[in-house]
């Protein structure tokens, strides 16, 4: 796969016009991560909706086209889903979402940064609200 394929219209579009970019005024979940090797950073905020769903979600950060497009597309995918859904999101889901670009090991980290932040935030929230939940272990 050539880079012309990796940076297809889709990724460039999300990089230049990221959906759900910005900050929420009110939110229940917030997480941040950065990649110490390249300096990319992603923040995410979530307002929990009815029945433990992802009501509103926004992200911000700086980084390469792949990391920002990936984070942005992920927020779109996540919106409205149950928080529990986040537990099942896999690397493969993210790669598929990006159109299965062929990425070297260092760029894979870019692609997965958004997922890492989303999981960190949601797992933390589920852990903290464990008592409120129906008794099942949110970290299982």
């Amino acid at each position, binding site marked *: 796969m050539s880079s012309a394929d990796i940076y297809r219209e889709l990724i460039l579009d999300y990089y230049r016009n990221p959906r759900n970019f910005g900050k929420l005024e009110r939110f229940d979940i917030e997480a941040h991560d950065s990649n110490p090797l*390249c*300096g990319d950073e992603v923040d995410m905020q979530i307002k929990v909706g009815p029945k433990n769903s992802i009501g509103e979600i926004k992200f911000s950060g700086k980084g390469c*086209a792949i990391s920002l497009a990936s984070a942005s597309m992920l927020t779109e995918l996540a919106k409205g889903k149950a928080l529990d859904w986040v537990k099942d999101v896999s690397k493969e889901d993210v790669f598929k979402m990006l159109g299965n670009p062929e990425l070297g090991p260092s760029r894979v980290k870019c692609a997965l940064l958004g997922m890492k932040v989303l999981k960190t935030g949601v797992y933390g929230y589920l852990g903290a609200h464990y008592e409120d939940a129906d008794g099942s272990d949110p970290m299982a």
Partner: protein
Amino acid sequence: MLETETLDVERIRADFPILRRKVRGKRLVYLDNAATTQKPRQVIEALDDYYSRYNSNVHRSVHTLGEEATEAYEASRKKTATFIGATPKELVFVRGTTEATNLVRFAWGEKFVKKGDLVLTTMMEHHSNIVPWQLLCKNKGATLKFVGLNPDCTLDLASFEGLLKEGPRLVAFTHCSNVLGTINDVSALCAKAATAGATTIVDGAQAVPHMAVDVGSLGCDFYAFSGHKMLGPTGIGGLYGRRALLEEMEPFHGGGEMIREVFLDHSTWNDVPYKFEAGTVNIADSIGLGAAVDYLTALGMDKVREHEVRLLKYALSELAKVKGFRHYGPEDPSKKGGVLSFNMADVHPHDLATILDEEGIAIRSGHHCAQPLMRWLDVSATSRASFHVYNSHDDVDALRAGLEKAGAIFRL
């Protein structure tokens, strides 16, 4: 390719086995030399020869292998010291520039920097010339201040002289910036610092590989450099220290070789430079560094520098033609090392590096271990192409073509 090479690049290339390799089916265009250079077969063979013929621990052996290894190790120290205008006793072998600055932090700084003292560094430093001083100052209750930069990416002399008036104990700065390429006037800065009573440490990581360096005429107290950036092996580098300073410093690591006598309640130290070389040293790579020094000496450092200035000049004029190209650093090639930092419109450096890699072109992208400088430049990262003796105009042409391609992919 343009004419008038001062170095015979084709012949040089033939010495570097890695340059025969293909990357993604393309000729390797290696432009990441500020990170680490490639190695000529003379260096690789020196390692092979050592391990195949006379590998042994040094200094304490009476047997033949031990004597041969010791002789080669000390011969390499002598060569390397001479290369930077020092005497062998003033050259401590270390892992690289980072270990050198940290050695000075621990062995000199912990002894001589006191609570309330001031330490100066600059806004154009590599983390290895910032973080050790942050840690030292924190530990000692001293203050770290940063000399500012001019808009043209040179050191702000007014800021430097203003801060000197506050009487710093130590002044740390780079000979050549690994991001901007800016070459500082080391002898002028050291003279001023000395007048102000400060000790000086110069980061020579990007200078020693690229230009003639003479620590005597620079007038610095300490000078640090890395072997792997000057055609030598990884794992070896040098710290020059003025003899009198080395003598009065504390040892750094404790262990074998650095001691004279060990008693239960105290120990006494070996002479310099051995006082700072505890344990089994990196024998093979020191010898490899000696081979790299021989190689560079044979080319002639003035020619190396001239070659890089020509390349820089060509690159600056060619790349300026690329849409969206923006250069960070002094514009005058004669005032800067062979390092070219840039960005292309909104193409993130990592994306750019990925696209170039597909063309066999290796550049660096990121913060280049200079986050304070990135903030000063107001960018999160840059791309960086950097040259060495085996690079030529055709590498610049390949880079330009690669950038054009990236521009097309990103629809600039």
